[in-house]
Structure formats: structure tokens, C-alpha cells
């Protein structure tokens, strides 16, 4: 069978004849040691890659592919891989079918009604092979470009982080919102009762405890600042009473009209 006869009209016909001859025998490199097959299969990216390899390896004219030889070689490779039961991508088998189809179409008489180029059954395969080869080369070139992390590294020196600047800031609205969320939730969960008290008393309660911190006891009068306003005195007094009520303070007076002492009942501290 002679593939070249079918494509006489092709402009590259003479070259094809020259190329065709030596390829009639199976190339020596076709023998592959069985244990190399797996590596081999990994090496090819698919049927197009394998075909390109065969074409380039044997210096075939890609515009005038001798389909018989190429198909035979391709099938030998694929056959070897199948014998060894290597997992072969379905695409390889599909390509076998395509190659055989092209080969047989080339044996059919050439209908005169259409232009020759359109009717070379190999045209589409050649187009795909060339497009794939183009991308394959492009991939190699991209891989040759210097690559960050592989061929060079990006400079980044240490910067002192300002811990303080990273802290969140809040304002009164944040607090207001937070508190309103709590209240709203508490209203819905009826069992939580939020007592409303004047803030100033709570603030002074903290202040009194602070004053007592680290001290065994203080005289009652010392809790009141000399410059305190009447309101402040009242609030402080209320704070002390509240603290006593909450068992945070203990007030003692050993003698009638004697000195009144205030002690913090802070067992953790006095222990």
C-alpha cells in the first residue's frame, strides 16, 4: 500500500516521496525494554505528543505524513503498552481509531468536485499536531523564564511592628451599642433582670475598693476626700453601703462613738 499515491495533488508531494522510502522498515528505536514502558508512558503527554515524537524522531514531513508507517508505529507503541496492562488513557485508543480512519480514507478515490486541500483527510490532524507543538514549545520557553522563588527571590526585610498601633479603638457608641445589645437580649430572655442603678454609685464602689486595696483597714472618714462635694459624699456613702450589702466590705466599731473602721473582705488578698 502506498499512501503517497493518494495525495499526488499536494504541493509537497516530491519531498514526501523522498521521505517515504527509508521509513518502510520499522525503526530500531521501536524496541523498548518492558520496564521502561511505564516511564515511557509518563513521558508522553498524550497521543498528540507521541505522534509528534514519532514524526520528529523519524524526520517525517509533517505536511505529508506517510499514514501507513505512522499508524503502524503508533499502534506498536500502544500495543506494547496494552500488553503490559499499563493504564492507558482512552485518548490513545481514540487516536488509533482516527489514524486508521484517515489511512482508509486516503485509499478512497478522490472526489473531483471539491478542492484538494479540503479533502486531504490528514489536514485536521496536522493542524492539531502543529498547534500542540506550538504550545509545547511555548511551555518550554515559559519554563525558561526566570521564576520567582526558583530563580530569584523577592526582597523583604524585617519591619518593626508597632504593637500599640495595632490595637482596636472604641468609642462611646461602641459601648452604647454593646450595652443595648445586652439589654435587648436580656429583655427577651426574661429571666435576666438588669437592675438599673445610678452609675455614680457603681463608680464609687470601685473607687472605695481601690482605696482599700493593699491596706488592712482604713478609717471610715478617710474614705471621703476632704474636697468632696456634698453629692460626692452622699454617693460615696451609698457606695459603701452597697459594698457592705454585697459582702465586699466590713464595717466595725469597737466602741460607741469610737473610730469606725472599714475593711475589705477580700479573702484572696488577706490570705
Amino acid at each position: 500500500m502506498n499512501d503517497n499515491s493518494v495525495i499526488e495533488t499536494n504541493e509537497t508531494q516530491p519531498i514526501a516521496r523522498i521521505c517515504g522510502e527509508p521509513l518502510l522498515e520499522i525503526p530500531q528505536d521501536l524496541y523498548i525494554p518492558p520496564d521502561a514502558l511505564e516511564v515511557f508512558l509518563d513521558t508522553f503527554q498524550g497521543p498528540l505528543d507521541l505522534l509528534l515524537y514519532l514524526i520528529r524522531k523519524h524526520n517525517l514531513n509533517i505536511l505529508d505524513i506517510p499514514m501507513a508507517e505512522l499508524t503502524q508505529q503508533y499502534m506498536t507503541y500502544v500495543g506494547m503498552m496494552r500488553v503490559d496492562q499499563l493504564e492507558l488513557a482512552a485518548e490513545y485508543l481514540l487516536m488509533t481509531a482516527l489514524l486508521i480512519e484517515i489511512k482508509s480514507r486516503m485509499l478512497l478515490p478522490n472526489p473531483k468536485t471539491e478542492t484538494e486541500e479540503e479533502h486531504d483527510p490528514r489536514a485536521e490532524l496536522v493542524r492539531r499536531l502543529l498547534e500542540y507543538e506550538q504550545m509545547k514549545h511555548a511551555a518550554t520557553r515559559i519554563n525558561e523564564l526566570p521564576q520567582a522563588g526558583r530563580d530569584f527571590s523577592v526582597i523583604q526585610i524585617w519591619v518593626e511592628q508597632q504593637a500599640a498601633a495595632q490595637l482596636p479603638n472604641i468609642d462611646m457608641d461602641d459601648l452604647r451599642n454593646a450595652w443595648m445589645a445586652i439589654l435587648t437580649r436580656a429583655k427577651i430572655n426574661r429571666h435576666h433582670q438588669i437592675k438599673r442603678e445610678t452609675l455614680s454609685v457603681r463608680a464609687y464602689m470601685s473607687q472605695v475598693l481601690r482605696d482599700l486595696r493593699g491596706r488592712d483597714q482604713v478609717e471610715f472618714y478617710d474614705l471621703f476626700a476632704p474636697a468632696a462635694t456634698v453629692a460626692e459624699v452622699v454617693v460615696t456613702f451609698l457606695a459603701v453601703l452597697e459594698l457592705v450589702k454585697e459582702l465586699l466590705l466590713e464595717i466595725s466599731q469597737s466602741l460607741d462613738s469610737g473610730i469606725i473602721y472599714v475593711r475589705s473582705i477580700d479573702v484572696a488578698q488577706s490570705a
Partner: protein
Amino acid sequence: MSAPLMSLNQLDTSDTLTPEKTQRILEAVLLTTSEPLPINELRKLFNLELSATVLSKLLEEIREKWRDSGVELVSIASGWRFQTKADIQPYLERLTPPKAPRYSRAVLETLAIIAYRQPVTRGDIEEIRGVSVSGSVLKALTTRGWIEAIGHRNVPGKPALFATTQHFLNDLNLRSLEELPPLEEMKSLIDSNEKNSDLPFEVPEAHD
């Protein structure tokens, strides 16, 4: 692959390791690494062929060379590293304004409870919020200097009593706790909100 070019260069430099080349490598490597590199690590660059003394001398020279720039080579406990000088920091911040982090809803609510109900124990806070308060929340506020333990309540377990600090008032531009939004006002806000049935449940930007 640019292997040929690179191996040429590599050969070139490793064959004749002049002080200039050594310095050039040291400088580039230190600029690439934000972690400090100890001398022993740097010796690996030259397959341990250069002594620590030689490297120290070269590093001192590099440090000197950079003296007037906005970047300095420093030797700290864990090794050598380049870092920006303090006067560059403000410029860096012009590029990337430090994005303001936000406190989680848990932190804000805990703070609000401590502010309005002080002194309170962790248990008090949990009762009001209806959920447990993680230690990290109290720690965040304590570290920030906004709350402190001012004593312990005399009940089993002796829980610490928390109150807000002067620092908290300063940071919020308040002269006293009385300047916080009064609770009464908020009560009526909530009531009116309920009528409008658009509850302020959000406390919107709550991330933990």
C-alpha cells in the same frame, strides 16, 4: 530551563570567592530573609569554608556601608538581619494605613458590663450576657489596661472583682464614668426600638 546560565554563574562565584563577592552574597541573602540569620547559618552559604571571624568582619563592613541609608543591618540575639530605621515607619504607614482592628462583640459587651456595673466578677458578667466569658476576653481588656481586678468577692472561689481604670477613661476621652451614655436613655431607646420592631440586635461588626 535556564540551568546553563545559572550554573555558569555559580561556578564563577564559588571558584573565586573574593571578599567583594562574599559580601555581595551575604548582603543579598540577608535582604531576602526577614528572619535573623546567625553566623553559623551564614557559614553554610560558603560550605563552612569561611570562619565566623571572617564573616563577622564582612558583616561589620556591610553594616558600615548601610549606615546612612533608611535601612540598617543589626545584630540581635538570634542573628543578623536588615531592618528599616524608625524614621521610615511613618512613610510605610502612608502606603498601608494600618487597618483598624476591631474588638469582638464579646469583648465590647464585657467591657460595657464592667463599665456600667462595676465592680463585677466574671460570674456576674456571664449571668448578664447569658454566655460564658472566655479568659482571653478579660485578658484582652486587662492587657489593654482598660480593666483591672480591684479585689475579690467573699464567696466560694473568691472570684476577682473587675472595674474599669483611669486609662480606660483617658482612652475614651472621658473625664469620669458619669460621662458614659446614661442607662436610662438607652432603656427608652430600646423600648422605642421595640415598638418599631427594628431591634438593634446587630452590634454589627462583631467578629471574634
